[in-house]
């Protein structure tokens, strides 16, 4: 198994785990307050839609020439990965609040308790739609990562299996914990996945643009190291700036 394949597996697994934690918070919040039947039907239907998207788009992309595919996928991964990385750096540097799954869970429960009762097609419509939308929206990012990672390397099945394994693991952990997984270090995972997505985007984008990387696959590791180092330096600089601002504010 090449280093590329291992990194694709890790990236798909980690990204999927983070999104699954967020989706789990929504499903648990609604299910505990309003009951499980409609909530689980909504979550299950969204899961089916996401699986169909991967099954349909994955093979369809095989007809696109690999150079074109890598250029387009690389450009999308660059833009998308940069968003994850940027937010993770700002959170780690203290310039954006960390995501709080416990708080999100509490808010979800309050909203679920306050919502009116409406029944459609034998389902509690609030539970069904909130759970469906929550899983679908969190899952779309995973579908995008699985398809882009997998298609550019011809490994959609493997990337989908890694993402599926992460979802199963998170659901099992949620069932065992009987609550949201607030101890999962979401920002650290998003930080690492952001570096991976942006690095793959850079590597495939340049390759699709017609560039030959020196050292071929080894260049990807160098790009990951470069972006990792720059990201850590940025976090350090932001933390110092934050501390300086707080100290100056206290002294004033």
């Amino acid at each position, binding site marked *: 198994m090449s280093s590329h394949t291992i990194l694709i597996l890790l990236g798909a697994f980690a990204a999927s785990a983070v999104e699954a934690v967020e989706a789990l918070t929504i499903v648990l919040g609604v299910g505990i307050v309003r009951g499980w039947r409609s909530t689980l039907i909504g979550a299950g239907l969204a899961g089916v839609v996401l699986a169909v998207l991967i099954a349909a788009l994955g093979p369809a992309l095989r007809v696109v020439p690999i150079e074109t595919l890598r250029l387009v996928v690389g450009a999308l991964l660059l833009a998308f990965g940069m*968003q994850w990385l940027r937010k993770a750096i700002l959170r780690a540097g203290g310039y954006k609040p960390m995501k709080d799954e416990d708080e999100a869970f509490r808010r979800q429960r309050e909203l679920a308790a306050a919502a009116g009762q409406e029944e459609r097609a034998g389902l509690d419509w609030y539970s069904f739609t909130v759970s469906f939308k929550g899983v679908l929206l969190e899952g779309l990012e995973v579908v995008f990562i699985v398809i882009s990672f997998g298609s550019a390397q011809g490994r959609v099945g493997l990337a989908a299996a890694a993402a599926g394994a992460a979802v199963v693991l998170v659901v099992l952990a949620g069932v065992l914990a009987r609550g949201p997984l607030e101890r999962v270090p979401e920002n650290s995972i998003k930080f690492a996945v952001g570096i991976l997505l942006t690095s793959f985007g850079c590597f495939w984008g340049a390759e699709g643009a017609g*560039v030959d990387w020196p050292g071929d696959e080894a260049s990807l590791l160098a790009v990951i190291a470069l*972006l990792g180092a720059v990201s850590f330096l940025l976090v350090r600089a932001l933390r110092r700036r934050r501390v300086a601002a707080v100290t100056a504010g206290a002294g004033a």
Partner: protein
Amino acid sequence: MRFVRSFALFWWNFVVGDDWRAALGLAVALGATYVLAHEGVNAWWLLPIGVVIVLVASVWREATID
């Protein structure tokens, strides 16, 4: 019409996000790499440098807005 607008907005947020300048910077860096590669220059170094510049500028702009 509302569906088309929502669909376009979803993809804009999904790919571009809240810093369109960063997305534009990346597009320029990738475009320049494409042009140079097709002019016979193996500009493998251009995109990593462009990505680093865009990342630093985007993060710093957001941090200094506060």
